[in-house]
């Protein structure tokens, strides 16, 4: 099981002091937080992607590339990468490059984005959100798995003999999670490919998340990727802790009451009872988090939202200390109990490489190594004739 944090990257005034960090301060704070994630023994740092203020992270792989150099162990991820408005060719290139830079410590969560104008700003139509997510990802997968891609779709210019570069590290594409709050189409897509499903979890009642995850698990089994219990599930969460539960409530309340998403709406107590938000002692967070398993089954990844709503960096780092020292060690132990042996751990680059080696190498994956280009026999049977011909010609020209 993997534990980590995901950040929205919002630039919000601290309601208790009136201080608003500069973009530079906020970006540096996110970099500090990511390194703290490794320091306190968590496993994953994931950043959002936004193209409008008050959010700063418009360029996730730039940020994650820096963090890759500053860390050794944690997985660098996103929550989410906009599959609707970003060119899938650029996503393929950016994340393959990041894979190499980070020695494989990379995966990503795809999402559609929730800011209407971003679609037209990037030349797309929000009413096509789902078709964009389906088609763009179908192309992204092929770009990572096939050396030379002939492709035509509804939304971007066609490709003939296009090769995305660099090729994925060790010929294995980064693991992909599909993020969705409410669209069954996205759960279906994740299940169809046997990819991970990440439920945001934090803005909606648990009963809703339970239904979405159950649907994904059933469809995962339907498509033949394993049993429903073996599907790859990630959950969001949101906590604020203090040794004493009452102190946590007192300290977090001004941030809750003014938070961009739910501020001036329900009381913190109502929101806590209706969503996974937990404000209290580390033990309360442990109990609540362990309860997630009761309605989604044994899962692979737990990410928390920690640095938002204007919480100062110092507070966020303290929260991470509590998570790392008091909460996650207990969760690791408890989640491991009664976990069936055939339920997979959270995916890593190493586990994907092993799986690829163990499986009888499927054709598309077998041909992703550059070395294979030397051998016509290794490639030809795996490709449609035209693609192979173009590919070989291209390889011949650039190979020297």
């Amino acid at each position, binding site marked *: 099981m993997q534990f980590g944090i995901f950040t929205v990257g919002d630039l919000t005034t601290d309601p208790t002091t009136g201080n608003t960090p500069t973009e530079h301060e906020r970006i540096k704070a996110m970099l500090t937080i990511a390194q703290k994630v490794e320091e306190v023994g968590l496993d994953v740092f994931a950043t959002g992607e936004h193209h409008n203020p008050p959010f700063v992270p418009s360029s996730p792989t730039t940020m994650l590339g820096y963090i890759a150099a500053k860390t050794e162990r944690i997985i660098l991820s996103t929550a989410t990468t906009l599959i609707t408005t970003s060119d899938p060719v650029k996503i393929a290139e950016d994340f393959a490059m990041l894979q190499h830079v980070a020695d494989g410590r990379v995966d990503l969560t795809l999402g559609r984005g929730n800011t209407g104008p971003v679609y037209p700003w990037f030349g797309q139509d929000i009413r096509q959100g789902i*078709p964009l997510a*389906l*088609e763009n*990802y*179908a192309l992204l997968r092929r770009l990572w798995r096939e050396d030379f891609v002939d492709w*035509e*779709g*509804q939304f971007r210019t066609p490709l003939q003999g296009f090769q995305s570069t660099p090729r994925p590290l060790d010929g294995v594409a980064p693991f992909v999670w599909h993020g969705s709050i409410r669209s*069954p*189409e996205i*759960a*279906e*897509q994740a*299940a*169809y*490919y046997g990819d991970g499903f990440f439920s945001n979890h934090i*803005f*909606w*009642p648990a*009963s*809703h998340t339970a*239904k979405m995850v159950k*649907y994904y698990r059933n469809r995962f089994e339907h498509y033949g990727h394993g049993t429903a219990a073996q599907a790859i599930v990630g959950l969001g969460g949101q906590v604020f802790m203090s040794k004493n539960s009452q102190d946590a409530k007192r300290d977090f309340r001004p941030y809750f009451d003014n938070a961009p*998403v*739910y*501020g*001036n*709406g*329900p009381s913190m107590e*109502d*929101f806590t009872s*209706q969503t996974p938000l937990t404000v209290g002692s580390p033990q309360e967070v442990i109990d609540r988090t362990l309860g997630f398993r009761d309605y989604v089954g044994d899962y692979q990844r737990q990410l928390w939202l920690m640095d938002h709503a204007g919480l100062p960096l110092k507070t966020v780092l303290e929260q991470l200390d509590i998570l790392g020292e008091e909460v996650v060690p207990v969760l690791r132990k408890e989640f491991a109990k009664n976990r069936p042996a055939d339920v997979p751990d959270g995916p890593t680059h190493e586990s994907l490489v092993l799986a690829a080696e163990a499986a009888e190498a499927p054709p598309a994956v077998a041909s992703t190594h550059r070395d294979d280009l030397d051998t016509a026999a290794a490639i030809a049977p795996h490709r449609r004739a035209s693609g192979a011909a173009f590919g070989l010609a291209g390889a011949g020209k650039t190979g020297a």
Partner: protein
Amino acid sequence: MTDRTLAVVSAGLSQPSSTRLLADKLATATVARLADEGVTTTVVTYELRDYAQDIMNNMLTGFANPRLEEMIEAVTSADGLIAVTPIFTTSYSGLFKTFFDVIDNRSLTDQPVLIGATAGTPRHSLALDYALRPMFTYLHAVVVPTSVFAASEDWGTGDSGGRIDSRVATLPARIERAAGELAALVARSDRSTRVRDPFELPAGFNPAGMFPPR
């Protein structure tokens, strides 16, 4: 006997309110018409005031709390809906609109709806046709032709027409006609017995993309 459910939503604010009074009269008349056709009707009536905070929290957070969710489920799965609002500032009240803003915009598709409104003077009666009716049309509900407006003075009219021009149908007559129109649709409705799959995928859905269209 056939069973049907009828939901009544009133956005009246006072207790009692003339809006609720009109809603109840419309419901009673509709139930009577359905009984004439051998239909037993279960009526569920909701005052939006009782859900005002839940509705606004839904507007702000994007989800309905369990209490509101239960109410929305009852309203949207009913065989017919009677929706009545006071007219404020020439239109439906904000509370009324906010409720219909937070429910899924597909959830009233095909639902037979009778709209009603109350106001202090008859001069606002067209609000039913320029505000409420288009809203329900957008939601793909089936709004019956007769909508019922009750100004304060209407509460002082009798079946016979009383003091006003006898060529104008009285409030009781308008209620009867509207109830007959709604009852006819409710009697044929199977909404309340439909099994609805929240995970139903759109027709032609292909997880690997929709191009080329099949």
